[in-house]
């Protein structure tokens, strides 16, 4: 109890710091220099309609590379951790309830749709809200649905892993091509930037974002699959 009170007290102090921040916060009324640059130049320079995407994939592509790597890493570690669980079996196997007819049918109908949606989201990342991450997550939720309906289903780890790694390699490779052929690492102007608003525009951004989508999807799937398989140990 003392501990709770103490934590509470500390958090109140932290809250005071936050309050300080909050009260000192003056919302900007104009875009600052950086934001203005993005607003004015990204479409022209990179050919993206979704400025956020331009920032994510190109201007701050290195962040995104890191971000993808975080997922890659997490997936690898989760795989690593859970693979031991598989090796050292413990406890009796639990009997699984059979899944209902409705769910199975629903799944059969829904999964392709979901996957399609995911692909759509990341292919159009440079035009509309959403992109590789969101699309990837949607892809993964398709896989999730499959897992839920058929827990005994085996996914090919090699396959997921290959997709994941291949996408990653493409990402890095395109980035390096940027060094060689364009203005620097992850410069999107390897390809013509085309017309703003078209699907095939914005240089390599759609390509990169698609691979990001694939990669993210594969990574989440890998995590989910790994987690689900531990059960059958």
């Amino acid at each position, binding site marked *: 109890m003392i501990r709770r009170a*103490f934590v509470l007290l*500390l958090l109140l102090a932290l809250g005071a*710091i936050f309050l300080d921040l909050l009260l000192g916060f003056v919302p900007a009324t104009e875009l600052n220099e950086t934001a203005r640059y993005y607003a004015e130049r990204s479409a022209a320079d990179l050919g993206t309609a979704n400025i956020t995407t331009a920032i994510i994939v190109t201007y*701050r*592509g290195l962040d995104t590379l*890191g971000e993808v790597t975080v997922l*890659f890493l997490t997936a690898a570690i989760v795989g*690593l951790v859970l693979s031991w669980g598989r090796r050292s079996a413990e406890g009796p196997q639990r009997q699984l309830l059979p899944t209902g007819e409705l769910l199975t049918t629903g799944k059969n109908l829904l999964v392709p749709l979901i996957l399609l949606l995911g692909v759509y989201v990341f292919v159009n990342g440079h035009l509309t809200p959403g992109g590789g991450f969101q699309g990837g997550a949607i892809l993964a939720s398709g896989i999730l649905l499959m897992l839920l309906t058929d827990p005994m289903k085996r996914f090919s780890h090699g396959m997921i892993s290959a997709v994941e790694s291949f996408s990653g390699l493409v990402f890095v490779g395109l980035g390096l091509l940027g060094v060689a052929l364009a203005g620097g690492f992850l410069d999107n102007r390897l390809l013509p930037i085309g017309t703003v608003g078209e699907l095939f525009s914005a240089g390599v951004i759609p390509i990169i974002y698609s691979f990001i989508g694939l990669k993210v999807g594969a990574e989440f799937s890998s995590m989910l699959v790994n987690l689900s398989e531990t059960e059958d140990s």
Partner: protein
Amino acid sequence: MVDGISFIAVSLGAAFLLGMLRDSWRFAAYGVSLATLAFLTWNAFCWTKGFAVDGLVPIEIFTAGTPPPFAVNLRLGLTESALLLLVHITALLSAIYLRDTLMQQGRRAMSVLLVLCMALSGIILTRDLFNLFVFVELTVIASGGLILLSQDKRALGAGFKYLIVSQVMSILLLIGIFFAYQATGTINIDGMAEQSALLFKGGFLAFFLMFMAVVLELKPFPANGWALDVYESAHPAFSAIISAAVGAASLIALDKLLLIAGPDWLMLTSIIGLITFIAANLFGLAQENDRRLLGYSSVGQIGLVMLVLGQKDILGDNYLFVVGGILLAHAVAKAGLFWISGLVQGRELKDWAALRQRPLLLFAFASFIALLMGLPPFPGFYAKWELVHALAAADRLWLLGLMLFASLLEAGYLFRWFGYVIKRDLPEQPLACPWHKRTVVMLALVAAWALAYIWGELSPHSNLLHLLPLLFALAFLVLEPLPAWLKNLLAIGGMVVWFLLSYPGYDPLQLIYGGIILIGGSIIFLASFYGSAQRRLGFYPSAMLMYAGLSLLIVAEDSFNFFAAWELLTVGSYFLILRGKESEPHALSYILFSLGGAFLILAGFALAGLGAGQIPLARLADLSGQTSGELAGWVFLLLAIGFLTKTAAVGLHIWLPGAHAEAETDVSPMVSGILLKAGLFGLTMLLMTMGKQQLYGVELTHVMLWIGAISALVGNLLAVFQEDAKRLLAYSSIGQMGYAVFGLAMMNHLGWMMALMFVINHYIYKSMLFLSVGGVAKRTGTRLMYQMGGLITLMPLSFIAVLIGIIAVSGVPPLSGFGGRWIFYNAIMSDEYRLPLVIIFLAGPIAFLYLFRLIHTIFLGQLKDEHRKLKEAPFWIVLPQMIFVAFLMIFALVPGLALRHVDVYIGQFFAGGPSLNWEGLTITSQFGQWAPIPIMIIIGVIFMTLFLWLLFVNRRAQKVKQFNIVFAAERPYRPETTHFAWNFFAPYRKALGFLTQPLVTRFWETLTDLLHQLADLLRRFYTGNGQTYAVHLLLFVVAVYLLQKGMM
């Protein structure tokens, strides 16, 4: 040399590539990982070389073809490339080290390792705040993954604790970054630095949060419990990476933030670093688990670097040199130690004794400890030198003092550990020593020495590794496989040759010290021929290191070389002392006192530097003229205490008895007869340059007089009550040094002559006595005097040496000790301080007591039954004694031989004062005269006449056993009962024993006990609960917030 982006792209690409491989192709995966790391290491090396040697200018790497601040940019300069090299080389070696684990865990583990490298490279290279955040998070996650590699199940808990706190950190960091962005309109580090006024107008808190997050990444006290748990439980190869590479990367992150912060935040950084440094080292004292200890040490070292980062404003051009020196030394040493810890099976410090099975590993261990401690010739030494000088010049003395104090704490546990390794029993489990792991450790060792060389080259002072004596000493490491007699011969030859080469350059004073050190040292080495059938591993490098330090000390002309030599001789003698059978605790207290003294000397030089990196020693003389106030007095005080530690002045003496007594037979004379002179030389140098100094109106030489006098008394008095022969001699040294200090402190010509007389005399007779007592102890197997007795007939030569020795020590004419006393009286005649003399007078006759005891209880009285078959001490131990006897005789007859020139030399410093006249056979002063040769002749004639007369009247005397006595009219039946030897001076103890109460010992013991208990108590604060750690972290944030609010 490949583009800088490769550090990120290549390792990442390789990590992704590993994912494409089949899980079973482990060799291929391992090969890819190693190749990647090797390639990047090579690349980093090329860049480093390019920047350092070829003078490349730092390059900017733009991504996305857009200039900053709109896109992320990277910068690669010397610092970055050096750190990249560090990161990759650590990772590469750890990967080699982890071969089996990685092969077992498969490609995923390898890719985690590669990603960690990439993340660290990112932290190092990036110039963008948010990018920094991303890489920091990557590091956290990758570390979290690698912690799992440990076989230790406890690592799970540790890793989770790590994740908890990094969550809190990332929350702080994110909020900070965004508000900072909002305040400045940029997220680029350099951009924000330009806008820092804007930032601090409204965004103080924003910066504060970022700052805290990065600082927390550096494991500051008290928010570092998790780090210790991680260090303790993670795989050692991984701990090596965290300690070396992650630590370095986090430091550069902090450095980048400080670029934004401006000067106001520097001091705060230093304070946090300082507190961490102190606390970690304090807690280390109570630690018995090796990896946790290494953890404490890591935390402490990083704290030290943080402290240095905060001193950026005063370090100027030396900033990188200092930070780099400390950081790289820490990284290499810590990585090396962690790697070694993977070879050692047991987890307690004393299990490391297993290292003794592998001398090379032992050497590596010693090097790493020295590297951590910043002993010469390692980079930390140069770096600390500059740092301390800068701190002193900027008048940040409290920082300086606390830092040195904490370093001493660190020395406490590191050297205790080293003592365990050398002295404790071999553990049952042998070393697990596959070749690839050993190679990794050896590479770290090579790196350590390479760094030593590089830093020496970079140093504005001289490179210690160019010094011939030091190299000669180090050469003995290579010569270790040779038989001992050959090494001994080489050592003697080297010292004699060095003396012959250098003595033309010596002034008379140096000649005396140089003669004692080099020629005297070689004579003592004669004793080392005994038992030279074994190889005596470690003996020659240590001894030669000490001699190298000594011989460099006397020729040092500037403060830097002087101090370096001082440290060398300290370290060398420590290793020597540690060789004794029971010497572990004593060697520890020796090194602690010595280092404490050395730190004071360092501080003194730094204060005297007045901003200069080093000063010629002669410049000390101008100090009182140049500065106002008490500065000169303080410099004097610090240096004097430092030197007095070495001469074991009372209060600082408790290390000496054990250290000298427990040392090996031929080592005792070295450390007593020769090493103590280093302190006297220092004092001579100090007094010669600075002369009399006052502090708050107190005449410091006057204080020194008192110290000398009391040392003489206490040393002699304590010697009286010893039962252990070597301890007795050791205490006697304290007394003798007291005399010498007294003589120097008199600050007149004759006082100095007396001190020099003592220098020579003490060398001769103490070496001789230690050798003979050592020889006796070798034969009897004990050093307790009451267990001996009656050895005169069995060991006549040793007896003669002791007899001559004690006559000389006690100052009875006709031997040379009397000369010392005579000069002493002449000296005090012209001195105005009389009270301390009383004490010296009291001390004089007391010497008699212990000397008599020495000769009586060992050689006279009843022979013990079990000693009936003893032989004379070994030839090689007796031989130098006989040489010393001859020396004593010669010196007694013609003291002028050694002293005349130095008399003239000293005369320059005390112009107009009384001096001695050496004409003819009589030495005259203004007060009296002394004719050594006639005295000898007269006494000899009287003595011989009487002796012959007695022989004549007693010509029929019958030799009977000593046991044939009439013991109060009863026939004693066992020799033991008739040898009165134990508690010999009981009445004296009754009368004056109260003076020998171990007050000083008790003081130091209480102090160390208190420190230990404090450490033991306070470390309980690390409860092991991850949530508590997070609470500590918040507490820390709030506390620093309040502190900074208060400061600004």
